[in-house]
Each structure stands twice: as structure tokens, then as C-alpha cells.
């Protein structure tokens, strides 16, 4: 495995930064994962699903309501535990880890983008991005530099001191994107990232997603929007808790994003 270095500040290293698996090895893998809810009346949200996410993948997960997308998202993001089966992240079996270790693994390896942005309202854009780097042994100055870089990457360096309430929906989502990538995760996991945006802002956000692609990092977007889904290289379709199609439109991973 190779160490993921910081593209703009080679001297800066985020403690606990994940290592990228060798080519051909998955970043994340679901192995026969089932997720059921309820005891008396059992609902199977996911049934024996297996999925491999490779470095450089840009995947969209689509499907109608109730198809199991959200459950899949929770499991991919280590926010939930499967009823049976295993979730492997970066060579570690997340399912078998104690909760505290699973949480740390999630923080190191996965960046989240949500439909409702979920920015912390009393913090500035910079403060929100820095939140992803807390408790990782960084000095405030180092954290500040990394967060500013991430904001620059999404084109919001000039608005670093603005609070969410002072920003448009598109800008808030870009701050959320900066927060998702600042720790250099193996995978960015987005839940309907354009769902709360108008067409123009949605296109802008999708452009940024396209720019964020790199051979080391995977991007997974869960969406209803077929337009958004078509922007991805690989489309995973779900129905009734199962993967019914897994189409790969491009075979090669993209070149690293230029600064």
C-alpha cells in the first residue's frame, strides 16, 4: 500500500491518513451483506448484497424509493452495521471492529456529503471544514492550512470566514464537499448531493465532483437523479434490497485532478 501525500503541502501529513490499496484491490467491499429491521415483522432492507468499490471509481447508486439505497449508504459509510455479511474498508473488516475503532476508521477513510449539507451553523466555512480534522493531533495552524486548501479546491477560499447562513445552498454544499475531502479520505460518499440545489448550482457541484476524481480516491453518489447518475463512470441500480445492475461505462480511472 502507498501513503497518500498532500498534493499542495507535502510537509503536512494528516495523522491517521489512510493508505491506498494496491491496484486491483478494493477500497471498500460489501460481502453478502444483509440488513434487516424489526423483530416480529422483519423487513429486509438489503439482501445478500456484494459490491466492490475500487480506487478511482466514480459510482452512482440509483433506485426507486424503498430499494435499499439509504441502507446501502449507511453501511458503506460505516454508520450502520449489517445484520449479516461483512464490510471491508481499506483492507480492514469494519464489521468486526469495536465501535470506537469503526468510528475512527470512518473518520480516516470516508468523507460525507449530505443532501441537507449538515454544516454546523455557528461555525464559519473554515471552522466547518476544520471540524473534520479535529482530534487528529494537528496544530491549529496546520489544520487551518489544510482547510483553506480544501476550500480553495471548491472555489470558496475567499468566503472562508462566512457562516452557513450567509451562503447560498450551492456554496454550502461546496463547503460540505471541502469538509469531505480535507482529510484525504479513500472515498467520498454523497447522499443526494444536488437534491436541495437548483439546476445551476447542481451542475456546479457535479463539476466539482468530476474535478475531485483521482486514481486514489473513489466517489460514490446515491441519487434519484438520473442526470447525476449518468455523470458517473459506473452505475449501480438497486431494487427491493438487491443490486439488479452494475454497469461500468469507462474502464480506466481518471488522471489526478490538477490543482
Amino acid at each position: 500500500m502507498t501513503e497518500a501525500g498532500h498534493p499542495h503541502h507535502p510537509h503536512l501529513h494528516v495523522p491517521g491518513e489512510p493508505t491506498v490499496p494496491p491496484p486491483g484491490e478494493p477500497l471498500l467491499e460489501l460481502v453478502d451483506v444483509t440488513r434487516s429491521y424489526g423483530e416480529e415483522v422483519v423487513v429486509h432492507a438489503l439482501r445478500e448484497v456484494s459490491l466492490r468499490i475500487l480506487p478511482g471509481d466514480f459510482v452512482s447508486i440509483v433506485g426507486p424509493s424503498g430499494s435499499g439505497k439509504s441502507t446501502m449508504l449507511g453501511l458503506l459509510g460505516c454508520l450502520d452495521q449489517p445484520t449479516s455479511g461483512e464490510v471491508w474498508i481499506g483492507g480492514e473488516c469494519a464489521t468486526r471492529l469495536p465501535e470506537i475503532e469503526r468510528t475512527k476508521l470512518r473518520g480516516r477513510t470516508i468523507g460525507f456529503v449530505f443532501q441537507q449539507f449538515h454544516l454546523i451553523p455557528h461555525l464559519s466555512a473554515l471552522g466547518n471544514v476544520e471540524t473534520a480534522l479535529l482530534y487528529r493531533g494537528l496544530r491549529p495552524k496546520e489544520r487551518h492550512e489544510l482547510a483553506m486548501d480544501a476550500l480553495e479546491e471548491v472555489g470558496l477560499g475567499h468566503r472562508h470566514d462566512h457562516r452557513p447562513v450567509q451562503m447560498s445552498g450551492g456554496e454550502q454544499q461546496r463547503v460540505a464537499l471541502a469538509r469531505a475531502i480535507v482529510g484525504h479520505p479513500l472515498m467520498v460518499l454523497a447522499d443526494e448531493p444536488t437534491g436541495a440545489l437548483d439546476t445551476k448550482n447542481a451542475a456546479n457541484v457535479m463539476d466539482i465532483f468530476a474535478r475531485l476524481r483521482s486514481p486514489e480516491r473513489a466517489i460514490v453518489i446515491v441519487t434519484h437523479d438520473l442526470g447525476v447518475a449518468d455523470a458517473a463512470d459506473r452505475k449501480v441500480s438497486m431494487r427491493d434490497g438487491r443490486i439488479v445492475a452494475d454497469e461500468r461505462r469507462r474502464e480506466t480511472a481518471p488522471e489526478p485532478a490538477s490543482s
Partner: protein
Amino acid sequence: MRNVRDLLGVALGGLAARKVRTALILLGPIVGVSMIVAAVGLTSSAKGDLQAKLRQLGTNLVECQASSAFGSQDPRLPEDVVDRAMALPLVEQVAPVLDLQGVLTLPYPEARTYYEAFPVPVLAVDTTLPEVLNVPMLSGRWLDRFDLEDPTRAAVIGRDLAAEYNYLQGEARTIELNGIEYGVVGVLDSVELVSTFNTAVFISFGAAEDDFVEDIEPNRFYARATPGYEQMVNNAMPDAISLGGSDDAECAVPSDLLAAQAQTDTTLRTIVTVMGGLALLVGAIGIANVMTISVIQRSSEIGIRRALGHTRGTIAWQFLVEAVVIGVLGGALGAGVGVGALWIGVEIKGWVFTLDPGVIVLGMGSALVMSVVAGIYPSMKAARLEPLETLRLG
């Protein structure tokens, strides 16, 4: 260490972002601690001057009087009582006194009627009394060995008597003792432990023998014991000085009475301290309440922090540190307000500012403990929140 700093930064940021809410929760510890500090301080300060005097006077003075156990009207101690008393270990100094009976003291002849009705005590003393009592001269001098060896008609008067006589400092003045003129050579400052001395006239044993009595055996004396051993000396003294048995003398420690007076009013202090404690308790409930509501309001923030890799422990600590900051800040502000209120009260009443620093430590400590206890439930509640439930995916 950096993680602790991060935690403190997050907690302070959370409190600073909600200034009104933070100010409201701070009210509980502020009111509680300020009440405790002010209540204890005020009740102590009310008696602070007495306590200060006690410290100045010392509590190691023993007073012994000849007892009238056998019905004598004018009981006396042995002639060599000073030597007997000094023979006791732990006795450092002794000053004998004889109360002269039937000596009429007049500042001027026309005042006879008044002073016959309200006689002034006249005491025969030696040179050691002010030193043993630890009382300085207000003006002039005390009786010296020349007054004793070749008895002169020199008198020292007590502070209150000097005021009553309108005696001016350094004034050449005589007073009449049974019609005999005595020159006033000095004024003794206030004697807290023996208040009758403030209105008394002091003359030498020799002068008393020349002018008023045949036998000058003292009927009482004052002894300074080694500090801390006054009770032992007090108990041993009657046997040491008596001729016919311990019933011949009665001894006491005068500061005991003053110490009893100087005791703070514990009932009042307890009531107000309990009220302060109740205010702290109500404050604690307030903190728990507001923080629990805050956890619900901030569930989205907690969810995103959890998604970003902050552990349950970190989330719990974040809220617990907020509670600690509230306790420390509220306690410090409460102590400040309490000291301020105490200072104002003391200034108004003219008391001596008396406050045991331990009360401030106790008040601030109580606020801290109360805040931490109040913060435990909300912290646990925050830590138990599942990110999946708060982030509403899909």
C-alpha cells in the same frame, strides 16, 4: 494534549455561539456561589472586629481572684502570690491587682454627689500590668518603679474615664482620691479583656498603702501563660497560689467570653448557606435542563461530528467540558459577585472585612461539582445519539 486543546476549543466555541443561553445557565452557579460567599462573609465580618482584637490580645491571659468562700467581705490572696504563680511552669508574667474599697474618686470637688452614686474603681497595681494585659498607653506613661519604690501620688486613668473627665492628652491634671490629690500621668488604652479597667484609676501599691489601706495583699492578678497552655495554667493555678486549699482562689480565661461573643451566628449562616446550596441545586437542574434541550437542538451537529469520526467519548467530553467551563466560569463570577456584595455590606455597616479564602474555594468547588454532575446526563444522551438517526439519509 492537542486533543484536549481541540476539545476545549469546541466546547468554548459551542458556549460562545449561544451567548444568551450561556448567560442564562451561568446564572445558577453565580447566584448560588455569591450567596454562599456573601452569607458566610457577612456573618464572619459582623464579628470580625472582635476576632481581630482576640488575635491581637491573645487568648493566653488567665485571671485569678481571691475567693470569698469563707464569707470574708474582702478576701485576699497571699502576699507572695506573684512568686507562687511564677513558680508554676508555663507562666510567663504575672501582674497583681488590689481593688481598693471605699475610695471616692473625683475629677473636681463639685462632682461629689454624682461620683458617690456612681463610684469609680480604684486599683493598686505594679509596673507590669500593661505588659501582661498587652495594652499600650493612649497617652503619658504607666506607673514606673520610682512610683512604687518611693511612692508618689501618681495615677493612670482608663480610656473611658479620661473621656468622661474630658482629659486632654498631656494635660497637667489632678484628681481627688478621698480628698487627696493625685497627678494624672497617663491614660491606658482600651482593655478589651477586662472592660472595667477602662473606667478605673490605677495607683501604685505603695501609694495605696500610704493613703488608703494597711494590708496591700492583692485580691486578684493576671497571668500570661505560654500560648496554648492557658487552660492547663487556669486549672493548676488555684492549688498553686492558695494557702488553705483551692477554694481560696477562682481562676478564669477572660478571652473565653470574648471568644464566645466572637463566634459567628451559625444559625443565620447555616440558613443563608443552605439557601445558597439550594440556589446551586436549582442552578444544576437548570443546567441539566438547558443542556438536554441543547443536545436535542444540536442533534444534527452531533450526527455530523459522529459521521466525521468523532467518537462517542469525544462527544460526551465535548458536552461535559461545556459543563465544566460553566461551573468554573459561574463559580468564579459568583465568587466575584459575592465578594463585591460582601465588601459593600461591610462598608455600609462599618465592619471588618473577614472572609476565609476557603469559603471561596468551597463555593467555586461546589459550582464545579454541581455543573459536572448536571452535565453528565446530557453528555451521555449526546453520546448515545446515532448519526444515522440524526442525519436523515436518503
